[in-house]
């Protein structure tokens, strides 16, 4: 199979769907003439023209709302946020309109829309630009959240998201856009809400989402050298959560660590832990341990930022602790 980058995989998903379905269009800041602030949409203006690849002013609330209105009319917008940090400016349309349209209209108007962009710390961008929005947004019923960690899942999940009839938030990472991996040339989908076991093991389950999956794999290698054999699961979707896959693994290993890059309070991590405590209560030999970003705004200084974010060292510590190897 050929190897392509994460950014190319995202573009293939969008372009394939735009070729297949002329209701699909892309809108956002710098997506057209500039080829995307992070070059994800490179060349798309040339192929699809300015009616389907649309540059906007810096008006997140406006163009997010515009996308929702278009989706109510049956179009299938892909709305790019340069960063999910900037989606906060559009909190009302994306949280108050998109996910509630179907319900509020008694089923008359749906909202088949994709919002996508970079999530998480980009590297010393400071607290306004380093948001991990997953936990905050996952709290809202009516929306779905996908968070690919490889080029393969990026293409499959985003393709599914564009075909999906409900609003889907696609959380990417600036830090992974250049990462390469095997991706089929033909179009394919990955069902939203299905996790992937990326490393099998027998001693402890590590569940994670998005970029930290790679830190988990790094930790698992280190722990293997200490004789702790970890199973690493890439959740791939946050809403819905594939609790069944997590639980099946925990029934085998009896221990679990959840790694979630957002803050711990009322988070994806706390949700996974609570659900596993409910469904695997008798299988667990310790309570689920969690690794998050520290509960502070993201600092600029490199040493502080590294200390704040999840990393392999912290994951190793959590696994040792949960398995009583500390």
């Amino acid at each position: 199979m050929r190897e392509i980058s994460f950014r190319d995989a995202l573009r293939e998903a969008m372009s394939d769907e735009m070729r297949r379905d002329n209701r699909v269009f892309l809108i956002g800041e710098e997506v057209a003439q500039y080829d995307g602030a992070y070059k994800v949409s490179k060349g798309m203006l040339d192929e699809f023209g300015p009616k389907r690849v649309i540059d906007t002013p810096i008006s997140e609330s406006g163009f997010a709302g515009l996308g929702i209105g278009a989706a109510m009319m049956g179009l299938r917008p892909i709305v790019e946020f340069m960063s999910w940090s900037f989606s906060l400016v559009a909190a009302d349309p994306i949280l108050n309109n998109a996910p509630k349209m179907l319900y509020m209209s008694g089923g008359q108007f749906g909202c088949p829309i994709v919002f996508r962009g970079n999530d998480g710390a980009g590297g010393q961008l400071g607290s306004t630009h380093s948001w991990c929005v997953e936990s905050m947004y996952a709290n809202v019923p009516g929306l779905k959240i996908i968070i690919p960690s490889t080029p393969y899942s990026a293409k499959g999940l985003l393709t599914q998201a564009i075909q999906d009839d409900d609003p889907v938030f696609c959380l990417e990472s600036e830090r992974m856009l250049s990462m390469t991996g095997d991706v089929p040339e033909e179009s394919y989908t990955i069902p939203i809400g299905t996790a992937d076991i990326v490393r099998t093991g027998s001693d402890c389950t590590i569940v994670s989402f998005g970029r930290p999956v790679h830190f988990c794999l790094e930790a698992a290698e280190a722990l293997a050298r200490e004789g702790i054999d970890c199973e690493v699961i890439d959740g791939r979707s946050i809403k819905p959560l594939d609790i069944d896959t997590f639980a099946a693994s925990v029934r085998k290993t009896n221990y679990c660590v959840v790694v979630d890059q957002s803050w711990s309070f009322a988070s994806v991590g706390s949700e996974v832990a609570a659900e596993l405590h409910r469904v695997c209560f008798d299988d667990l030999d310790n309570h689920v341990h969690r690794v998050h970003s520290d509960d502070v705004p993201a600092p600029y200084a490199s040493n502080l930022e590294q200390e704040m974010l999840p990393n392999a060292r912290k994951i190793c510590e959590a696994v040792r602790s949960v398995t009583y190897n500390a």
Partner: protein
Amino acid sequence: MTAIPMNQTDPTTESSPETEVVSLPTGDVLLGWLRDMMLIREFEVRSMQAYQNRLAGGFLHVYNGQEAVAVGTIAAVNSDDPVITAYRDHGHALARGMKPEVGMAELFGRIGGCAKGKGGSMHFFDAEHHMYGGHGIVGAQVPLGAGLAFATKYRDEVIDGGKSNHVTLCFMGDGAINQGAVHEAMNLAAVLELPVIFIVENNLYAMGTAVERCTAAGTHLVERARAYGMNAACLEGMDVLDVYRGMKPLVDRCRETSRPCWIDMRCYRFKGHSMSDPRKYRTHEEEEQWESRDPIERLAAWLVDRDLLTGENFKQLGKQVRSDIRQAVKWAEASPPPGLEELHHDVYTGNWGPYTGTSKPEFLRRRRDDQETSGA
């Protein structure tokens, strides 16, 4: 010559009732402006170097070319008038009096930085110099700017029982004016009669987007403000004397009447949007045209013409400024990174859970103390 010909909107204070003759300050003050602009330029040259050498991280947006705007506008207000801007903020902070070493240390993420290394390039704050930040979210600072003006007026009138006597300078880019928050703030400032001057640093581009591609009636930004009943002017921002002369009567009027005002300040950023911008959206010829109007060269030539500066003095000044910034870099490099205890410091003012309070809780009491002192 540019996407928007300079002559399309005549830089004038069109809505001023009468054209006021603004006298310039003394030669010494003008030399000070020259030095300030040179200091900003050199600071940016060294910050780009530092970024390339990975001494600075994150996003870096430099101010080269726009120096006359920060220096000329800030010269037209009092030293205790609040200033707030976006993420392209080094020039404003330095023009406001921030020590270059403190700014440089912030870029390096060091404890000696203006925010102890916690804010970075986009978030320069300096309470002592009434600099209310660098703000990273486009447009976010504009409602805050209205709030600063609300507070000065409230303090002057309600707490001190006098007449509103401060003016807030609130800067934004041409791209920011399409944020909803900016329009809400403009309306609020007009309705509540807030003494704030909104300054659009119209450098013709928001990242790769030329202003007329994303802004309706983009060549007539003043019309937006006039629709809110605001006094508005288009000023030439490449010449610090023009900036000052245009600003001074507007500042005086804003202080006098406590009514907001809006300025379309025509300027140009000489460098890319940030450090990763190949600038394919504009021509080399256009860049050269604007570079030939370099605000530093321009003031220097003006001063030489009037025998206020010699070529030799200008060279000397350049040397001095380079040495000052070299010192600043040294100082910043010598400043250590913040200790890990800083992570949980300044999150809350008090101590609880993992949090260890804040370093300068005096700010909470500042105004009340003033009042008690003056009442005693």
